[in-house]
Every structure is written in C-alpha cells, then in structure tokens.
C-alpha cells in the first residue's frame, strides 16, 4: 500500500485503513459494554414501572417536559456538529474541525445547564428521594422509586456527558496542535462514536422518563 511509511501509521498495522478500523472496533467494543451498563438500568426501570404504573405516570408528570424536549434537540444538534466535525477532519479542514468541536462542546454544556436547572427545580419541589421527599400520599413510596431511577439514570448520563466534554477538549487541543490530519483522524472518529452513543442513551431516556403518563393527567 502507498500509505506504508506514513508517519501516521503505527508499525503494527498493515496500512492506515486497517489502523482506522482497529481503532473504531475498539470503541465499538467499549460501547457494547456501555449498552449493557445502561441496559441493566433500563431493565430495572421496566420492572418497577410494570409493578407501579400509576406512581410512575404521576411522577413522570412532575418532570419539566419542555426541558427534556429542549435537551433532546440540543443533543441531536450536537450529534450533527460532531458528525460534521469528523467529516471536516477527514477532508483536512482544520479550522472547520476546531469550530465544530467547540460547537459540540457548547451544546454539551447547554445540555448540562438545562439539566442543572431541572435538578434545582426538583430539589425545590422536594422531589429528591429521602427524608425531605414530598408527594401525593397514595404514591409517596413508589414515586421515590421513580425519582431514584430518574436521578441515577440522568445522573450517569450526565457523567458520560462530562467525560465526553473532557474528551472533546483534548480533541480541540490535538486539532489545534495539528496532530489531526486527513490521514490520521482516528481520535476524532472514535470520540464521535462515543458522543453519538451518549446521544442515543438520551433518545431512550427522554420518552421513558418524561413522556409516560402525559395523556393520563
């Protein structure tokens, strides 16, 4: 292959294509473990929702649906800027790459900002499970299960977002230093895979947490 001898190519790989495929495969393998990690939480959610559907519907109704919808749009937009960033890296547009990575980060921060506002609202409304929890008496116990799952699932999702922002900051730095070229853009591609996965988790969290029981009340 003509790519032999390229500085971007690590010695253990045949060519750049193989190197790229191996990098992506490694990230996919990690994402499979993430699917099972979040899958377990969705499983617990499903079992409890099956047991206490009324309490779950009533609890879900207390969440800020506009905030959840807004954040869905924000994350989908960040996935677009991420996909465009990978394309900019592939085609060697360094300035566009840096701009799109920064746009992705700004959208990620906006998501976390809205989420923080939601958590604050839930704190003020005494919807955090524990001694200060307040809810209509008939659902008092089981609503706490919903809100526990809500905080665990959205909290772990937010942790993934924060890690993603850290990864993106490194990507901006690498791009700034000129370490990303149209030959070697694996870090951008692989970070993009992770970012899109976190978006997918939210695509499921949004309807299952915010939208159940909207039609009931």
């Amino acid at each position, binding site marked *: 292959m003509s790519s032999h001898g390229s500085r971007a190519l690590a010695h253990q790989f045949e060519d750049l294509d193989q190197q790229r*495929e191996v990098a*992506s*495969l490694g990230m*996919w*393998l990690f*994402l*499979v473990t993430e*699917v*099972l990690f979040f*899958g*377990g939480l969705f*499983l617990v959610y*499903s*079992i409890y929702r*099956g047991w206490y559907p009324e309490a779950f519907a009533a609890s879900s109704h207390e969440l800020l*649906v506009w905030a959840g*919808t807004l954040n*869905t*749009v924000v994350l*989908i*937009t960040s*996935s*677009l800027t*991420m*996909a*465009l960033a*990978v*394309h*900019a890296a*592939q*085609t*060697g*547009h360094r*300035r*566009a790459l840096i701009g799109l990575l920064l746009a992705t980060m700004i959208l990620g921060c906006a998501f976390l900002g809205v989420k923080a506002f939601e958590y604050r609202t839930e704190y003020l409304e005494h919807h955090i499970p524990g001694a200060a929890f307040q809810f209509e008496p008939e659902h008092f116990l089981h609503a706490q299960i919903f809100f526990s799952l809500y905080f665990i699932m959205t909290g772990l999702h937010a942790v993934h977002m924060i890690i993603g922002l850290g990864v993106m900051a490194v990507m901006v730095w690498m791009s700034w230093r000129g370490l990303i070229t*149209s030959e070697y853009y694996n870090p951008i*591609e692989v970070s*993009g*895979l992770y970012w*899109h*996965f976190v*978006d*997918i988790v939210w*695509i*499921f969290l*949004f*309807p*299952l947490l915010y*939208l*159940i029981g*909207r*039609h*009931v009340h």
Partner: protein
Amino acid sequence: MSTDAPRAHAPSATRVYYVVFAVLLVCTYLTWQVAYFDLGRLNTVVALTIAGLKTTLVVWFFMHARSSPRLTLVIAFGGLLWLAILLALTAGDYLTR
C-alpha cells in the same frame, strides 16, 4: 467548510447528515406530541419504536455503520444480542411469578 476543493472527495456526505438531522428532529416532535394521546399500551410501543428508529439513523449514518467493515457490525449487533438476553431472561423471571 472553508474551501471547495476537498469536497470533491465526498460531495454528498454532509448533505446526508443534514437530512438525518432533520428526520431526527421530526421524530423528536412526533414522540413528544404522540405522548399526549391516550393509546393505552401502544403509547410505550410507539415511543420505543420512534426511539429505535432514531437510534438506527444515528448508528447507520452518524456512526458510519453503513461504511464500517463487517467485523464492526458483528460486534455492534453482538451488543444488541447480549442486551436481548439480559432483558429476555430477566423478563422471563419477573413476568411469570
């Protein structure tokens, strides 16, 4: 994009991303609006179907599954298989108690 020259390599690539983005927004609007109609058990089915469709679009286009080698696709579908085992065996227990 700052210059036109490299676009020649993949002229339609970014266009596809914008189309997928638009479809994802429409799906988000649909899943949000349909939640206000009482469809009984179908509410959850519709919500999960739309979420599954959105996931497929993200995986296929944004995550480049359509141009990935077969080995990568096997790994990705393998993840779904393990998830299905996790869900099916646990549901098999809880639903038959």
